[in-house]
């Protein structure tokens, strides 16, 4: 019991920080939400103390019943007037946040489309050129970015707790969210609306970079894949087994658009939409056992391939920097 008692505060506190916490904000909207949360928590604690204090007063101190008029007055003030004023203040404060959060012209626009169970990410530069990517979001710190959200199949929800509140991705509808990342770091975004069997495996890393580094990264991301021409990393096994039917690797014959763009796969932090660390062993496993690792995924398992071919595909994917 004593152990549980000493552990409990730790359990609560460790949930307050980390890459996926609304209480450890790294963006403007998340900061506002966290402030609102702490303010409401303090207010709720005060109200709780007042109610418990009144109960103790009524039970222990004031043993005589109070008069009818005094009772009615208590109900009027404590039961109607004060709650109405508190709610009005909260409503006005909450509404005041909204125009601030939504307004402002963004210099960068990123289209994110939810698909079962991954994220199609397209960066749009000011001149209108589009850069295809997937399953990872990189943003410049200190600059607003407009995220244009939609869905290809079912309702998903786009949520990066450390940066902002969540917004649904609805088929046939375009939703807009403006993010103001302020702190450099790596965070985690998730799908926040149940979308199928692998809903819990639909996440993505969010990397907030200094603006110059972001521009350099975007320039690299826009370029076709640079594959060193060695015998172990040729496109042969990748193309021969039809991977290019669904996946695109710019600069090669692979131009499928059904699955995630793999042009710079090896430079991403995770694999399978935030499921695994992006290691050579995990890349091989994912190709061989996609259907087992990620139930309901549209990619078939290629476990029937010869081990040498799997190795060749994994090595090729690992070379896509």
């Amino acid at each position, binding site marked *: 019991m004593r152990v549980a008692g000493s552990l409990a505060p730790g359990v609560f506190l460790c949930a307050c920080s980390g890459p996926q916490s609304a209480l450890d904000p790294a963006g403007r909207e998340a900061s506002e939400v966290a402030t609102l949360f702490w303010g409401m928590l303090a207010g709720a604690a005060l109200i709780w103390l007042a109610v418990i204090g009144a109960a103790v007063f009524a039970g222990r101190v004031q043993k005589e019943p109070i008069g*009818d*008029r005094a009772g*009615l007055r208590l109900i009027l003030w404590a039961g*109607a007037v004060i709650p*109405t004023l508190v*709610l*009005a203040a909260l*409503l*006005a404060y909450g*509404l*005041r946040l*909204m*125009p601030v959060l*939504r*307004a402002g012209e963004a210099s960068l626009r990123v289209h994110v489309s939810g698909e079962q169970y991954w994220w199609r990410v397209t960066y749009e530069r000011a001149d209108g050129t589009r850069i295809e990517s997937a399953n990872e979001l990189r943003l410049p710190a200190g600059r607003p970015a407009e995220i244009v959200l939609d869905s290809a199949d079912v309702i998903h929800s786009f949520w990066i707790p450390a940066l902002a509140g969540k917004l649904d991705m609805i088929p046939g509808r375009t939703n*807009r969210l403006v993010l103001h990342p302020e702190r450099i770091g790596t965070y985690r975004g998730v799908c926040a609306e149940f979308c199928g069997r692998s809903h819990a495996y639909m996440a993505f890393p969010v990397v907030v970079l200094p603006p110059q580094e972001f521009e350099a990264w975007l320039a690299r991301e826009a370029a076709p894949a640079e594959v060193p021409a060695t015998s172990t990393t040729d496109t042969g096994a990748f193309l021969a087994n039809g991977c290019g039917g669904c996946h695109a690797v710019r600069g090669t014959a692979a131009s499928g658009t059904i699955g995630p763009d793999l042009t710079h796969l090896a430079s991403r932090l995770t694999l399978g939409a935030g499921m695994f660390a992006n290691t050579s062993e995990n890349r091989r496993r994912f190709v061989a056992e996609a259907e087992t690792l990620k139930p309901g995924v549209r990619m078939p398992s290629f476990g029937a391939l010869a081990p040498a071919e799997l190795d060749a595909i994994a090595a090729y994917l690992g070379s896509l920097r």
Partner: protein
Amino acid sequence: MLLRRETPNLWTLLTPPAVWALHFLFCYVAAAIVCARYPASLDGLRLAIGLATMAALAIIAIAGRQAHRHWGFGSDLPPHDAPTPEDQQHFLGFATLLLCALSAVAVLFGALPALIIAECR
């Protein structure tokens, strides 16, 4: 006319929440139409919602004054549960007065977003 009755009934009781419901519908329908067809400027919508809010509050205030009279100006405390015409009148008057307060707050809360929101997004 509902707002000039000597005695309360269910219709006078329902007037304030009915005004609240109509005001709520007006605000949402007007905002939906303006945002769908003329999203460039919200000034006209704001003015319309402001006028509707004032009209709704005025009707609720008149209904509240009448309910206060029906209640006997608070001469007698609730619960007003004796089986007499006088208690029935006081009960309906008091219930209407409480509904007036609720409806007035709800009308104000419903109109608040129109004051503050800057654009249709």
